[in-house]
C-alpha cells in the first residue's frame, strides 16, 4: 500500500517538476505539456546507432530509472509512509545513488559514440568526487540522530532542523545533490554546448523518454533526500505530514532547477578542484563540528 502511495507521490512530483521546467523555459504554464511530450516520445521512432553495445544501450535508461526509485524507497513521506524503513536507510540511499554512475557509464559506452563516451567518463570523475560530499554530510546527520534509520533521522530534527543545526552540511549536500543529478550547472556529462548532448545524444524516441523521466525522478529523489536529512522531513504546522514532505521536496527540486538556469556551466577543472580541495575538507570540518555539538550540547 505504502509502495503505491509513495510511487504515486513520486510521479506526481515529477509531473509538477516537468511543468515548472516547461514554465521556466517557454514562459507558458501548460499542465498537459509533460504528458504530451511523453506521448510524443512514444510517437518518434527510436533509432539504434550502428554497432552499439546493445546490452548497455538498452539497460542504461531503465537502470537509471530503477536506481532513482530505489533511492526514494527509503525516504519517508510521513512517520509510517515509507516503502522500506531499513535499519541502514541512510547508507542504502548512498548505495542506490552510486549506481547512477553505473547507468551513465553504460549509457556512455553503449551507443558507441565519442560524445556519449566522453560524457560517461566525465561523470565517473564527477560522481566519485561528489559522492564524498553526499556520504560525509549524511554521516554528520546520522551522528546527530544516532541512527541510520531515515524515520529516526527525521524524528531527531523535531524542533531544530538540521539546516540550522549543521548549515555547512546542508550547503555541501545540496551542491553534491545537484552534481549527482547532473543538472545544470553541473551537467557536464550531457552538456549540449560541449558534447552535443553527451550521454543522451544517441537516444531517441521511447528510450529518450525513459531517460528524461529517470533524470527528473532522480532530481525528485535527491530533493526528497535533502528534505529528509536537512529540512525536517514531515515536520511542520497545520498541514498533514505528507503534505509538508511534498512541499519541501518540490521547493528543493525547483530551486535546483532554477539555479541551473541562472548559472553558466562549471569548468571541469574547477568542478574537480573545488570538490577535492575545498568541499571534502569542509565536509570533514562539518563532521567534527557536529560531533562536538552532539557531545557538548545536552
Amino acid at each position: 500500500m505504502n509502495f503505491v502511495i509513495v510511487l504515486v507521490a513520486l510521479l506526481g512530483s515529477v509531473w509538477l517538476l516537468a511543468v515548472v521546467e516547461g514554465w521556466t523555459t517557454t514562459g507558458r504554464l501548460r499542465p498537459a505539456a509533460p504528458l504530451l511530450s511523453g506521448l510524443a516520445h512514444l510517437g518518434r521512432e527510436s533509432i539504434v546507432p550502428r554497432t552499439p553495445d546493445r546490452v548497455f544501450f538498452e539497460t542504461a535508461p531503465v537502470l537509471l530509472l530503477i536506481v532513482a526509485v530505489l533511492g526514494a524507497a527509503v525516504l519517508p513521506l510521513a512517520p509510517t509512509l515509507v516503502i522500506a524503513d531499513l535499519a541502514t536507510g541512510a547508507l542504502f540511499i548512498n548505495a542506490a545513488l552510486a549506481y547512477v554512475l553505473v547507468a551513465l557509464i553504460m549509457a556512455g559506452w553503449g551507443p558507441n559514440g565519442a560524445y556519449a563516451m566522453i560524457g560517461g567518463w566525465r561523470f565517473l570523475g564527477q560522481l566519485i568526487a561528489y559522492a564524498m560530499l553526499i556520504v560525509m554530510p549524511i554521516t554528520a546527520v546520522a551522528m546527530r540522530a544516532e541512527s541510520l534509520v531515515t524515520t529516526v533521522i527525521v524524528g531527531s530534527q523535531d524542533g531544530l532542523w538540521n539546516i540550522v543545526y549543521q548549515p555547512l552540511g546542508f550547503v555541501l549536500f545540496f551542491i553534491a545533490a545537484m552534481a549527482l543529478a547532473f543538472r545544470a550547472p553541473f551537467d557536464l556529462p550531457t552538456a549540449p554546448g560541449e558534447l552535443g548532448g553527451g550521454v543522451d545524444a544517441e537516444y531517441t524516441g521511447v528510450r529518450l523518454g525513459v531517460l528524461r523521466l529517470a533524470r527528473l525522478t532522480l532530481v525528485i529523489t535527491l530533493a526528497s533526500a535533502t528534505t529528509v536529512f536537512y529540512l525536517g522531513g514531515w515536520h511542520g504546522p497545520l498541514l498533514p505530514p505528507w503534505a509538508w514532505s511534498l512541499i519541501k521536496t518540490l521547493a528543493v527540486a525547483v530551486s535546483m532547477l532554477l539555479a541551473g538556469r541562472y548559472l553558466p556551466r562549471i569548468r571541469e577543472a574547477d568542478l574537480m578542484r573545488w570538490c577535492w580541495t575545498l568541499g571534502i575538507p569542509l565536509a570533514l570540518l562539518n563532521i567534527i563540528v557536529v560531533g562536538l555539538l552532539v557531545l557538548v550540547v545536552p
Partner: protein
Amino acid sequence: MTSDPTMTITGARQRQERFTVLQKWVSRALAGNLSCLIVPGPEVALSHGLDVTAAGMRITATPRDASVLLIIGELSEKMNEAVAVLYAQMPRPRAIVNLGGQTPSTLPDADFSAGVSQAGLIDAVDWLKRALAKGAFSDSPEDFDAPVLHARIEYVCPMHPEVVQNEPGSCPKCGMDLVAREAGEPAPEHDHGHDHREHRHHEHEHQHHDHAQQHEHHEHEHHHGHCHDHHDSHEHDHEQHEGHQHSHENHHDHGHKHQHGESDGDAEEKGSGHDHSGHHHSGHGHDSHEHGGHDHVGHGHSGHDHSGHDHGGHDHGGHDHGGHDHGASGFMSMIEVTKDLPRSADGLAMDWMEVPFGPVFPGLPGGLKLTLTLDGDGVTEGQATSLVGMINESEEGKEIGAETFIERLASAMPLASVSYRLLACLAIERAAGLENDSATDQARAVALECERIASHLGWLAQTGRQLGFAWLTDRAATLQLEIRRASGKRLLELTPALHALAARLGRTPLLKSRLKGIGILPSGTGGLSGPVARAADDAGDAWARLWQRLDEIITSLDYIKATGEPGLPVLRNIGRGSGTGEATVETPRGEAQLSLILEHGQVKSYRLDTACSHHIGLVAKLVEGRELGDALVAVGSLDLSPWEVIS
C-alpha cells in the same frame, strides 16, 4: 508551398497495420510539441529577426531530438551534404521547413517553404501542426537516401598509411593485405575490425538483401580479403597457442552481437517494415545514421576510433608482429603497438580520436566546422574550417550590376548584412568618385552601430548557448530582436535594459572562473582587429573579450544618442561612373576591406578582406592542449562568423 496539409511521405513514419486510436493521440501530441533544429544555426535565425520560440517551436541542440529541420536562407554545397546527414539522423516523423532559398539538392522537397519572415515561420508552424496531426503515420514511407550517405571504400595498408588503393591487394612495401576503410576516415586500423564485423554480418545474416549496387560490389571484395585473414589467424592459433577456441568464440560473439543489434535496429527503425525492401532501406538508414556521426553527433566512427585505435593496435599485432615478427608466441605486444603513438600531456600513450564539432553544433556558430583531436577530455590539436565562407570571384569579363552586387554581398553575410551593405556602397561610390555626404554618412554610421549592438547581443546569446546559461541566451536574444525592430528613439529606451544586462553578467557567479584565462592569444599575434584586438590590450582572454563587447554596446548606444536616427545604407546615384574604389568598414567582428573596379556602373572585379578570415587561423593555437570545454569557449570567444571567412 503545399496547400494540402498532409506530410510528404518521406518524413512520415512507418505506420502500424491500421491507424489506431493511440496513433491518433500520439499524432496530436507530436503536433503539440514541435522541436526544430535550425540550420545553419539559431544565431542566423536571430539575425534575420526570426523568433522561433514565439512561433511555437522548441529549439533543440541535436537532430536526435528534433522533429523539424528548419533551413534558413541559401546553403553552400558543403552545407547541403551536412544537412543531408543531419536529416538522416532525425527520428521520424520529421519535416523540412525552408525559409528563403530553395531546398538543398541532397534533401527531399521541403514540406513547407516560405520567405524569411516571422509571418512565414508562423504559417509554417500552423501547417506543421495540422500536417502532423493528420499524416504523422503513413503506410508507405520512402526511406531517405542520399549519395552523401554512401561510403566510398578504399584500401590502405595498416602499417603504411600512405599506401591507399581503390581495390584490395597487398601492400607494395610490406606485402601484407590491405584493409578496407571508408574514404575520409582518420584511423585506418579501426575500419578493419569494423568491416570485419560488417561483412561477416552481411555474409552470414543478410545475404538475401538487395543492397545498392556499389555496396554489393564492395562487400563482395571484402568477403575475400576477410575470409583470407581469418584463415590465417586460425592457423596461427592452431600451431602457436591454445587461444584458438577462445578467439573463435570471440568472433562468433561479435558476429552474433552485431547481427542482433543490426536486425533489431531495422525493426526499431522502420516500425513493421520486415519485407525485403524494408530491410534494404534500413540498410541505408544505418549508413546514414553512422555517417551522421561525422557531422553532428559524432558517433560511429569517432566512437570506433576510441576502441578502434587500440584494437587497430591489435591489427598491427595480429597481422604484423603476431604474424611475422615474433611468430613464436601469438601474443601481440602492446609496447610494439603503442610505441609509435604520440604521448599525451600526462605522458601516457593513449589512443586519440578525431571528433568533428559542427558544422551545426549547439556550442558553435553554424557553418563553422571544428575538428578536434581528443585525448580523453583534452584537446591535442584542432583546426577550424568554414563551410559557408564566400569566395573572392574576380575572374575577368564577368560584370555584376552595382545594386545586385550590394544585395549579393549583404545576403552573403547574414550575421552582419548592414555592415557589408555599407561597405559595398562606400566602395562603389568611391569608385564612382562621389563625394562623401555628411547626412547620409551619419545615418549609415548609426545603422552600423545598431548592427554592432545587435551582433554583440547575438554573440552573447551564442555564448549562453555554449555555456548552458539559459537566462543569458533568452535575454540577449530578446534584446537583439527588439533592437533589430527598434527605431532610434526606441533604442534609447532600451539603454537601461542593456546596462542592466552588463551589470547582471558582472554579478553572475562562475562566469568569471569560466572565462578568465581562457583563450589567451599567443603574444605578438598579428592580423587581429575588432573586439578581439581591442581586448588583446588588457588580459586578452575570453573574459576580457566579453567585457570589450559589453563596453562597445554601451559606447555605440552613446553614439546613437548623440547622433540620431539610423538609415539603412542605400546606394546613391552613381550614374555610369567608372574607376577603382576601396573602402574599409569596422564591422562588429573587425575591419573589413573591399576594393573593386567599376566600369559603367558595373562591378568588374572586387576583392574582399575580412577580420574573420584572419581570426579563424588562431583557432589551432587556442585549442591546443586545452580541456574540451575551455577549447570551445576559446573558439567561441573569437566570435567567428563563418560567412565572413573569405577563401
